[in-house]
């Protein structure tokens, strides 16, 4: 079963009296256990699409199924719980909580998902280890570099063991070298943890890493290229 399916999805923003169609009649399937990149020019609708798939916003038309479940009918609370258990998010600006240490930031989603203390501790340790920040566990975001912050954010996104992780231009605020390292890290983690990663990016390096790559322009998907990655391993 595809982790995410979009059927005839449309989204229109209303600015004063003007309607801005951000997404038009999107039909899309995201394969499980894949590195999927959505690319397109600025304003083409990448963020809007990711927000809909990530259940942060609701479509005006069409239907979204996540792990086979239509999310339209879920209440706001149910949707929050659903995100807490099944989805992870990585942001362009890292969006870590400044008052929490790296360790606590990674732990926070586990608190929301009410994971027991022992499991929390083990998981946070191993994730910080996986992103190479074991020695920075007690540092607050303000004491970390951009690349380090994004690595903490990756660990946070993965801590509740989500099925899908969304990353909206995760390297846009990093220099290209750090960006490449982050992409490589995400690619490795995606394989190790058997999760689906969905990116938006204009970065050609990101697109090279992708299993599946989709082009969006003016709110429409204009091309889908699927790589050879086997879904069966998920």
């Amino acid at each position, binding site marked *: 079963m595809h982790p995410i399916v979009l059927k005839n999805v449309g989204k229109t923003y209303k600015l004063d009296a003007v309607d801005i169609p951000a997404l038009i009649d999107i039909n899309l399937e995201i394969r499980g256990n894949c590195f999927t990149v959505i690319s397109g020019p600025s304003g083409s609708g990448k963020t809007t699409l990711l*927000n809909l798939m*990530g259940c*942060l*916003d609701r479509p005006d038309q069409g239907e979204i199924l996540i792990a086979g479940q239509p999310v339209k009918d879920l209440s*706001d*609370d149910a949707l*929050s*719980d*659903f*995100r*807490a*258990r099944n*989805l*992870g*998010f990585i*942001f362009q*600006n890292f*969006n870590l*909580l*400044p*008052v*929490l240490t790296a360790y606590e930031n990674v732990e*926070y*989603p586990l*608190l*929301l*998902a009410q994971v027991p203390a022992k499991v929390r501790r083990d998981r946070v340790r191993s994730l910080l280890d996986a992103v190479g920040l074991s020695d920075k566990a007690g540092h607050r975001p303000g004491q970390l570099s951009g690349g380090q912050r994004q690595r903490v954010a990756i660990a*946070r*996104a993965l801590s*509740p063991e989500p099925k899908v992780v969304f990353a909206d231009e995760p390297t846009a605020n990093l220099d290209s070298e750090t960006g490449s390292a982050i992409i490589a890290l995400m690619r490795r983690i995606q394989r190790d943890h058997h999760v689906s990663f969905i990116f938006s990016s204009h970065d050609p390096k990101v697109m090279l890493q992708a299993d599946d790559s989709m082009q969006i322009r003016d709110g429409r998907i204009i091309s889908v290229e699927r790589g050879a990655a086997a879904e069966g391993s998920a």
Partner: protein
Amino acid sequence: MRNLLLALRNLLRNRRRTLSTLLAIVVGTQSILLFGGYSRGIIYGTQTEFVKRSGHLQIQRKGYYLYGGGNPAAYGISDYQQIIDAVQHDPVLAPMLTVVTPTLQLGGIAGNFAAGVSRTVIGTGIDVDDQNKLQAWNDYGFPAINNGKPLSLTGTAPDAAVVGMGVARVLHLCRKLKVPDCKQEAPPDPAPPPESANAAAAPADISDLARGEPGEPAANDSAARIEVLAADTHGAPNVVSLSVVEAGNQGIKELDDVFLMMHLEEAQRLIYGRSAPQVTGIVVQLQHTGQIAPARARLRELLAASFPGQELDVLDFATINPTYGQFISFFNAIFGFIAILMGVIVLFTVSNTMNTSIVERTVEIGTLRAIGMRRRGIQMLFIYEGLVLGILGVVLGVMITLLLAAVVNHSGLSYVPPGRVDQVLYFIWLSGKQNLLFILGIAATLILLVMGSAWWPAHRAAKMEIVNALRHV
């Protein structure tokens, strides 16, 4: 606990803003508590004064309070000693009682006929020992100024009396009684007033009346003597000659100008002559003011059952002293005004702080919602911050207030309250177990208010759309 710690950390993010908000809460708490303590000091201090002077309850003849003031003869309680005995030995009342004592109030004219002056007075006949016991009442533990000092009538001759300074002034007794501010009094050895050349002594009829009384002490030139004239039970004039041992400041001018206190027997002799002595009131003082209702109920029961012949009423001190209720409503009104004003200031300061902080943390709110926090969780986040802010500010405010109160109470600062003629110490009454509930109540209300002030901003924060919050710059 985790939530509180997180709230504390978030509050420490912008220390200056948090500090200024705390300051507003501290000042609000202080103003409310300081004024509350001050007005409680006055209210309970006044109550203590009334209770020391005239007990909690008074047994009087029905109608005496409204109509009997000038007419002790018509409203006298007979067999009062039996009533007192019955009250003191009643199993229900006995454990509540401190003092039960008779008093006799009378209106009369006091004259210093040697100087040719007189004035109307309100005299009270009292039992000195009982009155001294009444004076010992201090249920609220006030640092009373003249506690333990017995009445000036203690141990004096049966014809001794105390007058108010105002009375002493009018009766030209200033020099003998060492009353200050007496410029109008004639110098020593005054020439007799022209229209009373034969008035070196009291008028003959007056002295005749006085001479008729038994036990007349030998005239003593150095003593300040007055004659008090009143109507007896038959409406006939009667006179006693009293030796004034002291002119005391009664605090309130109106009282000071008419005050006369004497031994009960002497007062009874003046009003009832040789017939059976009566009293106008039986003062009942209780251990605690809170016992008034049950004590009064029991007293009424007892009086109706055992003394049906006399129509007796039981009045509480607040009825007898209407100013007490006026004090309470006056101070409560000001207290309410200050409390509301401070509450509104705290409310606006806190909600303003919260709003600013929420705007600044919009992206954070979006992020938390994205990673699965419910709306309620966001709301609680900020309400917890309000709670921490409230607890910190209020606890700090209470501590500073107690400190300030202690400083004021020990400073010896004094003022003359309206309607009084004597200095009163500034006293902020916040100590002791009687005030614990008051302080805790105010503190809890303020903490709830601060939390409530965070509620609306927090609600707004919780209602944000995630995508808009994340897009916020």
